[in-house]
Structures are given as C-alpha cells and as structure tokens.
C-alpha cells in the first residue's frame, strides 16, 4: 500500500514540476523546479530499489549539472534586468502542434509495436545489496563502456574549457 501511495504522489510531483519548468517565465525559476523534479525522480528510484542510482542522480544531476546551468543563467542575466529575460511569446502555436505530432507517433508505437505480455506485478525484491551488484556489473560485464564513458567525459571537459575561455 505504501508503495502505491509513494508512486502516485511522486509521479504527480514529477509531472507537475516538469510542467512548471517548461512554462516558468524566468530561467532561474525553471532551474529551481528542475532541481526539485530531479529530487522527486531520485525518490522514485528509491521506491524502485535503485538506491545507488538515486544517490548518483542527486549527487551528479541535481548537485552538479544543474549548478552548471545556474551559473550560466546568472552570468548571462548579469547585465540585463530580470524582466528582460521573460520570454514574451512562449506559447507559440507551431511548437504545440509539432509536439502533438510527436505524441501521436508515441501512441501509434504503443498500440501496435509493443504487445507486452500481461505486465505482471513489478515485484521481487533484489536480495544482494544493490550497490554491490551495480558495482559488480559495472566493472565486469560493462568495463569497456565504462572506459568509453570516462573518455567521453574527458573530451567534454576539454571541449567546455576551450569553448568558455576568454582569450584562447
């Protein structure tokens, strides 16, 4: 019973915050609600017994990436007064139409493509501690993707530094 309550509460909050993120007038509000959204998603992961990914989500996503965004938003808005960065025409009709098309595609895929067996109850706790098994998998079966990911991060770091430097 507790799990059901948690799921519905969390998903309602997640979707609510997501809507606010894309309709927020000022960028800082959008970022704040994005952080809130990520925290609720992390809560959802805990409900799904994925503690490690939940903590990483809070640490890396909410605690790292979105701070990057906040920095840039603050640097960008430094000179102009807050009102100037309101998006006047944010509810453009064309955009809504295009996203409706995407929704229709999704519905089509869901109906025809994926005929899942009657989805059994998502159950069955995971005995061994979640952290150990994720770690175990990460360093045995998925070692190569792990190294590739670290290379990717290195390249991204260098790229970001080169792009953002003032005098090259």
């Amino acid at each position, binding site marked *: 019973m507790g799990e059901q309550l948690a799921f519905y509460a969390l998903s309602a909050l997640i979707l609510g915050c997501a809507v606010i993120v894309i309709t927020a007038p000022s960028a800082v509000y959008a970022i704040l609600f994005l952080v809130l959204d990520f925290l609720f998603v992390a809560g959802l992961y805990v409900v799904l017994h994925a503690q490690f990914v939940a903590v990483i989500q809070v640490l890396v996503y*909410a605690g790292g990436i979105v*701070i990057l965004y906040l920095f840039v938003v603050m640097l960008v808005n430094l000179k102009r007064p807050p009102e100037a960065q309101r998006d006047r025409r944010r509810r453009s009709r064309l955009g809504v139409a295009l996203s409706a098309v995407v929704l229709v595609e999704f519905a089509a895929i869901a109906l025809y493509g994926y005929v899942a067996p009657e989805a059994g109850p998502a159950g069955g706790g995971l005995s061994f501690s979640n952290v150990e098994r994720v770690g175990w998998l990460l360093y045995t079966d998925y070692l190569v993707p792990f190294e590739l990911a670290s290379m990717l991060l290195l390249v991204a770091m260098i790229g970001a530094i080169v792009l953002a430097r003032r005098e090259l």
Partner: protein
Amino acid sequence: MIDLIVIPLLQIVFVLTGVLIVVMYLVLLERKIQAWVQVRFGPMRVGPHGILQPVADVLKLFVKEDITPVKADKWIYTAAPIIVLVPALIAFAVIPFGSSVSLFGKKISLAIADVNVGLLYIVAVASLGVYGIILGGWSSNSKYPLLASLRASAQLVSYEVAVTLTFVSVILSAGTLSMVGIVNAQYNSGVWFLFVQPVAFVIYMIGGLAETNRSPFDLPEAESELVGGFHTEYSGMRFALFFLAEYTNMIIVSSVATTLFFGGWLPPFPNLKALAFLYYVPSWIWFTLKTFLILYLFLWIRATLPRYRYDQLMRVGWKVLIPLALANIVVTGVVKVLLGR
C-alpha cells in the same frame, strides 16, 4: 508498527533538537576559545560566564527586523537560507552516534537510518547546500553578494570533488558504503582508519574546512574584502539560518570524520583485550568526545591562520588536493590487492 514509525520519529526529534542546541553552544564555544587564544574573555555578560549568550543571540535574531531588498526576488530570497539549512540537517540521518542503547526494554540503534549508500548520501546532500548560497547571493539583487555567491559556490563545488575522492579511498579500505559498516570494519580490522589512511584524513580535513567556508578558506564572508559575502542583505532570522547552517555543516564534517577516521563509537584500541574496560563507557560518549575534539581543531585553526586569496584557494583545491586524493586511491587499491585482503 511502533518500531517502524514511532521510534524513528523519536530519534529524529531527539537528534534535531540535540543538534540545534549543540550548534547554539558551539557558537559560544567558538567565541570563548577564540577569546582565550587572544588573551581576552569572550562573552561574559549574559548569565554566569556568558552561559546564556546563545539564548540572547537567538532572541535577538528573532526580534530583529527582517529586511527584504526592494528589487530582490522575494520567493527565492526567502527560500535561500532554508535551502542551505535543510541539507545540513538531513545529513544527520545516516550518522551513527553510537552502537545501540536499550531504553524501556527495547534495543534502539543510535543511527537513525543505516542506509547502504550512507556515505554517498552525505556527499549528495552536501552538494545540494550550494544552491542556497548561489540563490541567496543572486536574489539579493546587488553587486557584492552576487560576486561573493559565485565565488563561494565555485569553492564548494571544487572542494567537494576532493572530499568525495577521500571518501572513495576510505570505502576501499572499509569495503562498504554504509556508515555503520565502516565503523564495524574498523572494529574488525582492530585499528582506526586514521592510521590506515592518514593522507586521506589530512585531505578530508582541509576539504572539510573549505566545504564549510571556515578559515583559512572563509573567503566568501571575508570582512576585509567584499562586504559581508553572500549574506550581506540578510538580517534577522534569515541571517540566523545561514549562520546555523554553517555550524551544522561543521558538526557534520567533524562527525563524519569521527565515523570514518576515528572509529565512530569505538574506544581507542577497539579489540585490544587489555583495554576492554573502556567498553564500560557508553558508545555515544566516545562519539561525542571525538567529534568535539575535531570541532576544537576547527575552532583552533580559525583563531590562528590567516586567509587564502581566491586564486590560491582554487589552486590548492585543484592542483594539490585532488591529485593527492587520486594518488591516495591508487595506492590504497594497490596495497589492498597486494595484501590480498
């Protein structure tokens, strides 16, 4: 039902009130120690030897007028101090204050929640605290606090990397992420991790100093440079929240240091038979003793060392601490493989 809801609630209430009281008296302790170092008395007026000074401070901050700057962003301006304080308080959930104590017949463990990702939880929660500082500076809508908040957040983020890397090397030697597990690992190995990981301890303490904006890294609210740092525009209760958060962070850093490096609630030499009598002292007394020892270190450093400049502070963070922490991880890994443990 009772074990699931009532006891944790009691634990939480007890820990939070305990922390808030300790924080209040930590402020007094700091002023007294700094005064003692500087050949003066410190607060003596309120109550005998200034004992009631924290009460006076809290009352003053309650009563003082809460000014909001005119063009400040009202919502974020109010939320910022809360965003700084809440992560500092919720990090206490995983800290094991002691092994266990039996009250009215029931065995209650002194760690509120023994989560298997304990240490990562603390780092994750600590990284959320940065938001309050950035938003605090940004929403006060004036030049000084904005610059100071940018500097403070850059400092926090870069030292967080160093502190997380020291945690990795401790996890390597402990084998588990959960805090209670780490203390048990120190019990089984019979020696505190301070001696197993001395380098990690030093890096952690320096990182901890920088994480809590304490001297010699207390640049953000360095009076002599930018006026008052990111909480210039704050007054009254909101300023008290920032102040409270700093000291709570200090307590967290020292209690994590106690758990990780000084063997949580274990007496000095855990399984040395000759010192078995030390076990008669209840576990949480050992924990408090060691935490206050490290807190004293914090206060002592503040009274003696001058302050780093911003670029030197970043240089130490990136060019000294992080490479050292990485090297320490590699060394720990190699030693662990060689010893085959």
